[in-house]
């Protein structure tokens, strides 16, 4: 089911910027628009469907408009034109009060530099959203404590943000968002300010939490590896235009533009692609191979995990097994080697 539907979204910064929309529709680019009209093109004709319960990553370099895009979903930034439909409601038409209610109940956001309140302790930070909703202290504190424990910050309730390391502060940010129990979690470069190791920890925490939570998550990043690791779907933005959208495998194996191609060139496919991503049906495999000697791998294993056995055992076929052990697909060594050769 589609949770968030973004339709023909334009954002142009500047005075009377709506007048420039026809120009952009006729194909005027970012530089020309700035030169001729003094308007800055933020987003141009973005159309995007975000599935319920999925992590939808929006990737792009700085200036690509990705942070602007995510801020449209809770309307921290107002669109110049276009619609954003969430659960059948066009949120671009909400008045102030309805918008605040929408923000209180549907969304929560995690920020790049955490956005914590320095004058509140950790518990008060985590319960900030509930405090805004005027939920009584007892309830909100017990909810807040649960989430503090879940992100591994037990015992830090009465500390202040400045006393915590960056990784710990972002755990607070995550707990603050989740304590609000939002349907949609907006994460704006949430892990970009963290050290590589801590960043990996946080990605793993998010993946682990998402297994139970099944929230709709919009995740902004400039890091392709992070996008490939987290994203059920990945959208690549360039200069305010949506360049390509698809699964990690689509993006890696079938880049549609030169920009995306250059981006994915250096990615280690063996570390990103899972057996289930590249397996084929039995019908695509020749009879000889099906009857030959096979190597069994799990659907969620990345190529790197079984490549050594392929090299040593030289099987005729790789059989992909589901969680309960039944074969759900096949992979020939030829195909595997083609995929790895790029």
């Amino acid at each position, binding site marked *: 089911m589609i949770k968030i539907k973004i339709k023909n979204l334009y954002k142009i910064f500047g005075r009377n910027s709506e007048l420039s929309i026809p120009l952009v529709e006729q194909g005027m680019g970012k530089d020309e628009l700035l030169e001729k009209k003094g308007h800055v093109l933020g987003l141009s004709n973005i159309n995007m469907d975000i599935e319920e319960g999925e992590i939808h990553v929006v990737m792009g370099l700085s200036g690509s408009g990705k942070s602007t895009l995510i*801020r449209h979903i809770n309307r921290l930034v107002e669109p110049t034109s276009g619609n954003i439909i969430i659960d059948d409601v066009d949120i671009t038409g909400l008045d102030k009060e309805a918008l605040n209610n929408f923000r209180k109940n549907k969304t929560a956001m995690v920020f790049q530099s955490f956005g914590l309140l320095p004058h509140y302790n950790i518990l008060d930070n985590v319960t900030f*959203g509930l405090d805004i909703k005027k939920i009584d202290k007892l309830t909100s504190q017990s909810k807040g404590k649960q989430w503090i424990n879940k992100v591994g910050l037990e015992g830090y309730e009465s500390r202040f943000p400045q006393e915590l390391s960056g990784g710990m502060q972002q755990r607070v940010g995550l707990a603050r968002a989740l304590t609000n129990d939002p349907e949609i979690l907006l994460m704006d470069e949430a892990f970009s300010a963290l050290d590589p190791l801590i960043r990996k920890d946080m990605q793993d925490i998010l993946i682990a939490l998402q297994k139970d939570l099944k929230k709709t998550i919009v995740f902004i990043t400039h890091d392709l590896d992070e996008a490939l690791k987290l994203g059920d779907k990945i959208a690549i933005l360039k200069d305010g235009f949506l360049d390509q959208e698809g699964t990690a495998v689509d993006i890696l194996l079938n880049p549609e533009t030169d920009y995306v191609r250059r981006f994915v060139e250096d990615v280690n496919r063996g570390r990103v692609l899972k057996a289930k991503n590249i397996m084929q049906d039995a019908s695509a495999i020749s009879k000889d191979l099906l009857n030959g000697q096979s190597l069994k791998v799990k659907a969620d294993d990345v190529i790197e995990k079984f490549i050594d056995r392929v090299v040593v055992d030289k099987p005729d076929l790789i059989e992909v097994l589901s969680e309960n052990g039944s074969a759900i697909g096949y992979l020939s060594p030829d195909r595997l080697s083609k995929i790895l050769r790029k």
Partner: protein
Amino acid sequence: MFDFFLTFPALPREFLRDFKRGIDNGFKEFSRSYGENIETFFYPLMKLLVFIERLLISTPWPIFIGIVSILGYWATRSLKLVIGIIIAFTFIGLFGMWEDTMETTGIIVVSTIVAVLVGIPLGIWMSKSSRAQTVITPILDFMQTLPPFVYLVPVVMLLGIGKVPGLIAVVIYAIPPVVRLTNLGIREVDNEIIEAAESFGATPRQKLLKVQIPLAMPTIFAGINQTIMMALAMVIIASMIGVKGLGLEVLRSISNQYLAIGLLNGIAIVAIAIIFDRISQAYGKRVQEHRKGGNHK
């Protein structure tokens, strides 16, 4: 021929005379018809001022010194300041300036209260509305550069000589820093923190009370501190329009060339200025302790 360039061609003398007379008469007319209303309007201020002055004067001196010492210690945790406070007030008392000092303290306290009550809302308004900021900023600039003697004139014409006009002159002179720094403090709050508050659906009021004002507090306190210092400077000048206290003695010493009186009262003013400054500054720093981290248990 060259005369034109050597002497600036001023407007005709008659015109200037009529012009000035017109303004004066107009203002006199205004104060004649509204002066009484304005006085009634400021009557509660008069009450407050008299109440605080009486309170200060009727408080036995050991209790007064005790209270200020406790206040000083609570704000700064410094015994040095407490000793300074005791020495300063002993000096003031011994040289017979106790009552004058209490009157000056009273007017400083009241004018600071008024400046804060008017200034902080003004500063908040400026921070919310860029239009308000563009209008108020030049007015504040004007107020801060206009020689203070100049605004004594309309105040006296409106309200005559006495405590309340003096108080109003002091407030007008001292209010700009608290307005400016409230505005600045709120505008300086990290944008991502504001966005965070908004993303949780905070109303403008919740945003202001829970996020902006608490985070602007250190800056606001710097403004209050400067306002107090400016009030102390102005209270001396305001003695020319009937404010009693240490300033009046200074004024007397100027007109009569009493060096000793001038010096003693001057030193007393410096002493209370330092005490006010240290206490309000230390309090401002305590408000921002969370920023350093590690001080909370």
